[in-house]
């Protein structure tokens, strides 16, 4: 093993990329100001410095606490979040919105601080494995909260909000994380049962029903609640999460087949029974139909205007501040992708989609790199949550699939989604830190203490790994092996 094989912290790479990300975010803000305000007033610089301080603070925490964490995740996320704030700010200049950008910046701050606290306090993602069933309970509570009378609030036809005083919150966003923890923990514990016991039908092996019962209960509760709340986007996302994680855990292609069949069945059932869903299908099939376009409620006006916006943007876009993205309803949350497509054009929107793809691949890289099964499944689950959100939103706006309301990660206005996505970032950074951290090859550590419970502190002994230069560590290893023979 030579020195080049040793993982490097690569925090300096992160710093350079982060500065570039901040240049883009603040540059976009400044462009909005130049195009729409007469002059750049102090608030622009204050907002820019707040974002920069938050991002650089996060970077410093990573240097101290998770030195070997993936260096690409933070710059990508800061770019997306900053562009989101700039676009929301730009839309604040239209008649439809006011002051949303400040709220989004505030939520960005809250979310990043929450992510830092999680990173600092959790230290090791494997502790979450003990919370497998607690997080199942938490998910169910979080999903049920919005239908509790008095607490829940109905908005835009979906009952997913909880309001306490002036604050409103979407607990379902946090349930994404807790459900991913439950699926990962459950499958990490019971993989063998699901893999080995089962009946073979043709080329595929189907697992026994009783091994999967808890999983199906979780899935049914999640879907049932979401259907009651009319939240079809999240229902699709939870189901996709479930299928993807179980496929990765068992590497059985039959799961993809079963999942596909269930999605088809679910779509047909939803079309037949849920009027809300049928409406979405109608809009999808006949978006340009005059009668549907002009309908007062549940028409395709929003979707078609979004497509016109994308077309208006063309290849290079109209430039920030020069388009008319506010023609689309909810332009700063559900339809923010259409606003970006109009003002940054295909080149800009393509770059943003590529950033999402790279973020997904970094999440998956953390999953591949980590040694423990729970971490692999958790990172995969969180990656799938990210990519499905993007797919459902962008697919809906471009008419690839029926439109459902989901928040575009990091871009759309909305505090709960932002918080959830930043917490996911913290978790993945922890997992990737564990994956890339050099394996300690020093003298062995006596595990008699805490080890007896079956739970070790994996960070113990990391001092030897971090401070010893690569050569001396290799020597220790040679010596150690030699002594053993």
């Amino acid at each position, binding site marked *: 093993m030579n020195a080049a094989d040793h993982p490097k912290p690569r925090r300096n790479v992160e710093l350079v990329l982060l500065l*570039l*990300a901040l240049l*883009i975010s603040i540059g976009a803000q400044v462009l909005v100001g130049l195009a729409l305000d007469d002059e750049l007033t102090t608030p622009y610089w204050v907002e820019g410095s707040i974002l920069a301080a938050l991002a650089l603070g996060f970077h410093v925490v990573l240097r101290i606490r998770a030195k070997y964490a993936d260096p*690409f995740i933070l710059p990508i996320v800061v770019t997306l979040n900053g562009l989101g704030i700039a676009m929301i700010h730009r839309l604040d200049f239209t008649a439809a919105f006011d002051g949303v950008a400040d709220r989004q910046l505030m939520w960005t701050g809250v979310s990043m601080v929450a992510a830092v606290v999680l990173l600092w306090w959790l230290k090791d993602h494997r502790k979450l494995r003990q919370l497998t069933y607690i997080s199942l309970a938490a998910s169910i509570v979080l999903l049920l909260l919005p239908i509790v009378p008095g607490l829940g609030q109905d908005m835009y036809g979906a009952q997913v909000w909880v309001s306490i005083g002036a604050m409103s919150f979407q607990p379902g966003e946090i349930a994404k994380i807790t459900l991913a923890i439950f699926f990962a923990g459950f499958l990490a514990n019971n993989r*063998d049962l699901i893999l080995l016991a089962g009946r073979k039908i043709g080329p595929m092996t189907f697992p026994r029903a009783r091994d999967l019962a808890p999983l199906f209960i979780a899935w049914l509760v999640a879907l049932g609640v979401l259907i009651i709340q009319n939240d079809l986007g999240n229902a699709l996302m939870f189901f996709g999460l479930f299928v993807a994680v179980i496929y990765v855990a068992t*590497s059985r292609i039959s799961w993809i087949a079963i999942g596909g069949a269930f999605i088809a069945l679910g779509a047909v059932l939803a079309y037949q029974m849920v009027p809300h869903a049928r409406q979405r299908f109608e809009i999808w099939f006949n978006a340009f139909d005059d009668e549907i376009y002009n309908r007062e409620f549940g028409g395709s006006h929003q979707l078609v205007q979004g497509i016109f916006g994308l077309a208006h943007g063309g290849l290079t876009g109209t430039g920030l501040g020069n388009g008319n993205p506010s023609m689309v309803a909810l332009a700063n949350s559900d339809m923010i992708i259409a606003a970006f497509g109009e003002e940054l054009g295909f080149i800009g929107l393509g770059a943003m989609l590529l950033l999402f793809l*790279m973020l997904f691949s970094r999440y998956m890289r953390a999953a591949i790199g980590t040694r423990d099964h729970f971490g692999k499944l958790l990172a995969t689950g969180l990656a799938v949550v990210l990519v499905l959100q993007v797919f459902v939103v962008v697919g809906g706006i471009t008419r690839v699939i029926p439109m459902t309301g989901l928040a575009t990660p990091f871009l759309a206005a909305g505090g709960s989604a932002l918080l959830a996505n930043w917490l996911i970032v913290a978790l993945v950074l922890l997992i990737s830190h564990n994956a890339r951290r050099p394996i300690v090859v020093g003298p062995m*550590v006596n*595990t008699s203490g805490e080890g007896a419970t*079956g739970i070790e502190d994996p960070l113990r002994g990391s001092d030897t790994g971090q401070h010893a230069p690569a050569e001396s560590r290799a020597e220790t290893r040679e010596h150690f092996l030699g002594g053993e023979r």
Partner: protein
Amino acid sequence: MSELAITVLQFGLLLLLWILILSIIAAQGRDMMVSKRSRTRDRRNDKPAPAPHDSGTPATVHQTGQAPRPRPRRLVVSEGPLVGTEVELGSAPIMLGRAQECTVVLEDDYASGKHARLFPQGSRWFLEDLGSTNGTWLGDEQLTRASTVEPGDRIRIGKTVLELRT
């Protein structure tokens, strides 16, 4: 500010976005490459064994060719506090560690509670480290992922050495 200058700046923003993307790709380098040794190895068994690699070939890859492999039947402790202990191998996975619920309870101060796991897939047994404090060694290599174990390979956990026997 003139309209031309603003237009130039707008294009500059798009350019910066792509510069960011390209620098991330450049900085990633070969990080996204999944090396040959980390591919799941069971697929290789169906094909004729590829030519042996250079000295970098991990000890865990065995070029046994097409000859039918004898199936391991026993797990034997060959060094350490429990020397001589034998466990029959069935079709169920085996958990190794100091915790009482393990299949093989190792009385070794340097082993973790749930240290490693041996599991069958096809006609082979795989060894997987469960995030132990001191790591699991197969031959001279420290395990970083599940690897095949052949009869005679030294599995070292703490001060204990185990072997599969046919």
